[in-house]
């Protein structure tokens, strides 16, 4: 467990301190939170599971990629694991840049890519007592950040 995957509640204020930067005039934060409904089914909680060492690799590489691909000065990405009730933040992206257009673009990119690349799985727990694992995008070799020799 480290800087990117957390069993503890995500701490936005700490990420804001960590990314403070006098040359940035724009701060964009995205946070995913557990929603009380999905596809018409009342949801009471979501369990997030990660392949922790790979996920840490992927999110660290994603931060680096965002910093090199966009004119932004800070980028942090964190994802929570464990069983989270409705309203609880599951993921946070923090981006700081000189100007806001780039900050918005970079934050959106980071979240889109997190959903495609991070080895994280969601099990939705419904009000009915049932639960379901959600499946989205197949991973590819590329997500590791550095290619396997």
């Amino acid at each position: 467990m480290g800087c990117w995957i957390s069993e503890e509640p995500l701490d936005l204020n700490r990420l804001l301190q960590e990314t403070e930067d006098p040359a940035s005039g724009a701060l964009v934060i995205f946070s995913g939170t557990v929603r009380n409904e999905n596809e018409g089914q009342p949801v009471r909680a979501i369990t997030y599971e990660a392949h922790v060492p790979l996920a840490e690799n992927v999110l660290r590489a994603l931060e680096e990629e965002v910093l090199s691909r966009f004119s932004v000065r800070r980028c942090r990405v964190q994802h929570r694991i464990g069983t989270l009730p409705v309203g609880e933040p599951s993921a946070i992206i923090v981006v700081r840049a000189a100007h806001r257009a780039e900050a918005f673009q970079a934050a959106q990119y980071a979240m889109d890519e997190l959903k495609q690349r991070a080895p994280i799985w969601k099990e939705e727990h419904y009000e009915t007592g049932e639960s379901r694992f959600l499946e989205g995008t197949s991973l590819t070799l590329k997500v590791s950040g550095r290619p396997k020799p």
Partner: protein
Amino acid sequence: MRVKVVFYGGLKRDVGAKAQELQFDNQTLTVAQLKDGLIARYPVLRPKLSSVVCAVGDEIVSGDYLIRDGDEVALLPPVSGG
């Protein structure tokens, strides 16, 4: 050859276990051969494994990756974080 296979996401419900220690008679075992062996043991995985990738340690490995005795291989179905 002993391999510890760890099932992520819905796979652990399909198989009924988070991890399994499996024994293979092969002299060499690739990830692709491991997947075939898993389908033989767990037919429920047959329709799923084409969209599953495998990781050893903190990296994803391809089908021709050679598994070593004692390796832990993670089976990663399509992801749904965020």
